[in-house]
């Protein structure tokens, strides 16, 4: 047998893919609900509480409503691109989950099963590549709508992502200098043994966080869909589930960037103050996944908390912040980290 395919491996990965995709969709669904609830409590309101106990069926009702809405494809739009836009947004949003280490290994059926779909050795670069592809969904949708507001929204999204991706990448370089690896799994393992990366890279984390807000098109960087100036931005012409895909992709993106931030800076599935090796492997893997989810929930809450606190930037302010503040700051951070890493390699002790 030249091509000995390990069927068990294929099944294991397929199951894992299905679980990850479903989980990110369900979590994104409930993030929409959480967004409304968080917005409500921050504004002294009650939020949705009619559908089911405490309103937990609200996202189902919302989804159902979107499905039943009339699907309109304007006849002045380019149809293929118009459909491609939201599909691409959704696709790229979900694709990122492939390289994220959701947990440690579990031991079932005499096999060690890694809770990561693919441990790519350049994992974080893959995440970056896919996330920046996400802007194509917005750009194509905005372009295909053939509407001036959509086009302006798409343009803003594109320029915003380009501006902030730079600073994000540079802040990441500093982090990579510290960890010495691109694989997300290895980063988590390193953080399990030592301190979390936030301790080494506080400034880098701050830059990364701000850029993550920009990448997700979240307030205060939601210029692409600025309701009160662009009527909704790139998705003005969209209706029904195509609009739903755009909104949904935003929440999946938020979830994924929370996971990435938790993994890069907050130890991923590491449980603090606990040596995982001393306990049962399967239970520890489960608790690790829960721990990661707890961190993610914290980040998602932060996303919402900021959204309901800070108003939107003006376009020139956005560009100023990106190019004149964040990029120099990220460069400075990179130089500083580089210098310290070099000194440490040459035998200096801190």
């Amino acid at each position: 047998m030249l091509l000995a395919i390990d069927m068990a491996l294929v099944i294991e990965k397929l199951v894992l893919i299905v679980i990850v995709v479903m989980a990110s969709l369900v979590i994104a669904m409930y993030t929409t609900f959480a967004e409304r609830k968080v917005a409500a409590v921050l504004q002294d309101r009650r939020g949705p509480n009619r559908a089911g106990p405490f309103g937990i069926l609200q996202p189902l009702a919302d989804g159902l409503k979107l499905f039943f809405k009339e699907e309109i494809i304007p006849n002045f739009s380019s149809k293929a691109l118009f459909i491609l836009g939201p599909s691409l947004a959704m696709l790229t949003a979900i694709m990122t989950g492939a390289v994220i280490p959701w947990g440690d290994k579990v031991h079932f059926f005499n096999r060690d099963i890694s809770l990561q779909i693919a441990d790519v050795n350049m994992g974080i670069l893959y995440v970056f590549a896919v996330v920046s592809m996400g802007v194509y969904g917005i750009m194509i949708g905005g372009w295909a709508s053939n509407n001036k507001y959509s086009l302006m929204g798409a343009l803003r999204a594109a320029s915003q992502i380009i501006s902030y991706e730079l600073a994000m990448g540079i802040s990441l370089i500093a982090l990579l200098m510290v960890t010495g690896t691109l694989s997300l799994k290895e980063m988590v393992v390193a953080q399990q043994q030592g301190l979390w990366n936030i301790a080494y890279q506080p400034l880098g984390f701050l830059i990364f966080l701000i850029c993550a807000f920009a990448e997700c098109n979240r307030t205060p960087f939601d210029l692409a869909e600025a309701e009160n100036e662009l009527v909704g931005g790139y998705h003005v012409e969209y209706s029904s589930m195509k609009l739903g895909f755009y909104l949904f992709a935003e929440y999946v993106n938020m979830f994924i960037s929370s996971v990435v931030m938790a993994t890069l800076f907050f130890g991923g599935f590491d449980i603090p103050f606990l040596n995982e090796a001393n306990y049962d492997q399967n239970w520890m893997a489960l608790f690790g996944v829960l721990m990661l989810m707890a961190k993610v929930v914290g980040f998602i809450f932060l996303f919402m908390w900021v959204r309901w606190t800070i108003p939107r930037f003006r376009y020139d302010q956005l560009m100023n912040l990106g190019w004149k503040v964040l990029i120099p700051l990220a460069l400075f951070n990179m130089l500083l980290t580089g210098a310290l890493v070099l000194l440490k390699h040459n035998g200096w002790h801190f």
Partner: protein
Amino acid sequence: MNALTNRAKPVDRRKMNFLERIYLVAIFKGMMITFSHIFKKKPTINYPEKTRPFSPVFRGLHILNRDEEGRENCTACGLCAVACPAEAITMEAAERQPGEEDLYREEKYAARYEINMLRCIFCGLCEEACPKDAIYLSETFAPSDYQRKQFIYKKEDLLIPHPLKQPEEYKKALGNKVKREKAN
């Protein structure tokens, strides 16, 4: 120019220092303000399940009263219609026939009694004008509807349930009328 009130504050036009210029402190302060609102009491009342308490003198929908044997009090004297400043009340009188003594308390009764709830201003003058304690304002308010004609309440909409035949409904409809009378 003189300030109109003593609450005016001059605008602080000092140059921002470094901490203020990076805005992070201000953002943090703002976020703490929104965070503190999580723990604030919510003014919303879950309406259909909970209603706000009415004051004892609240004037809502009208109720045509019966006596304790279930006979209608109204004698169609028309005083309420005369007292009504909005002219919302219409009625037609009829004479009680022999054998109807258990339906109407006196020899004359209202065959038709209508209140236009869109005209009514819920002033309660009808209640004050009534010599027979036949009409009073309850604690329910007029529900919404799609058609104007639904707001003309007929006698059967206004009559209180029979105290002997439907004692529970009667009690419910009575509400805290007794309490109110004591308060008056």
